[in-house]
């Protein structure tokens, strides 16, 4: 529906897989940072 690819991620991580969790989080943050701020879902400032 127009949400940029990479903005949303899914993963399946067991509670025992702490290293996988860290890696996934690092990955996701890096991709999202690269995409920049999500202005699409930001409301325009109200004009008084």
């Amino acid at each position, binding site marked *: *529906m*127009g*949400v940029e690819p990479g903005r949303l991620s899914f993963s399946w991580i067991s509670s025992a897989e702490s290293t996988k969790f860290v890696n996934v989080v690092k*990955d996701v943050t890096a991709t999202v940072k690269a995409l920049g701020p999500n202005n699409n*879902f930001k*409301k325009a400032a109200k004009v008084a």
Partner: protein
Amino acid sequence: MLGYIDKIREISKRLLDEGRVDMIIGFRKGTILMMNEPCFVKNSGELSTLVWDSNCGINLANYLTDRKEKIGIVAKGCDSRNIVTHIIENKIKREKLVIIGVPCKGMLDKRKVAGMFENGIDDIREDDNVVRVKSRGVETSLNKSDVLQENCALCIHRNPVIYDELAGPLVEEKKDVDRYADVRRIEAMTAQEKWEYFKDLISPCIRCYACRNACPLCYCPTCFVDESRPQWCGKSQDEIDTRTFHFLRAYHCAGRCTDCGACERACPVGIKVRQFTSKLNKDCLDMFGWEAGVSPDERPPLDTFKPGDPGDFIK
């Protein structure tokens, strides 16, 4: 299809007189042309109010939710699939229902018909394949197949999937219908184009929630848009709030939507609400081979795990 009504009344009378049901849910003539309204008939004296024609597009399964009475319900193909969904989701018990199945040849797109006559419509009559519209004394004949609702034109489940009585002989199901041409067109767009497309699509939305109210799937006691603690979705007509509503409403219907078109029919500003749900229906079919409401014995894909389920999206 018009001849069904005698049979519907006859079955209804029998059911009511024998005490097998407490009421019949069917259609009566609406106060406006092309807008038949749902009605509950509780004694056989009132059965003459029941009607059946090509303006019965509302999904009657919507009126079954959590009912405790014994109910006879008139059901076209899509209604019957929503009744199945209701049974699967424990919203109604099968034993409480006597389903009067109506093989359906499609419902009229009232907006399309009204749009063809700028002088307004005085009267509208129909027979099996032709609709005769009177506008300022001039009668025009329309081919019924040209003025069907879009979902009806693409329908491949015209016969009820579950029924106890039948109001007429089963009709032949359409084959080789390309149901998802529209979806593929949107899938081919870039993310930015999609964003703009849906922005335009929902721009007339007045957030009346008619699409939600008409939908038999939307039976939550408190809808997420009405919730105020926490407030998931702003109540204004701000574009982002509206978009959030439409996104989430569609996703709540994933794997459940039968494409009955009630949402689109109910929309007062003519938004093609089905553009959201069609994509989900297509995905369910492609990924899980699933069509909602076809069998009461099968669990929906979002509630079961199968080893073959696609998992490519999981990293």
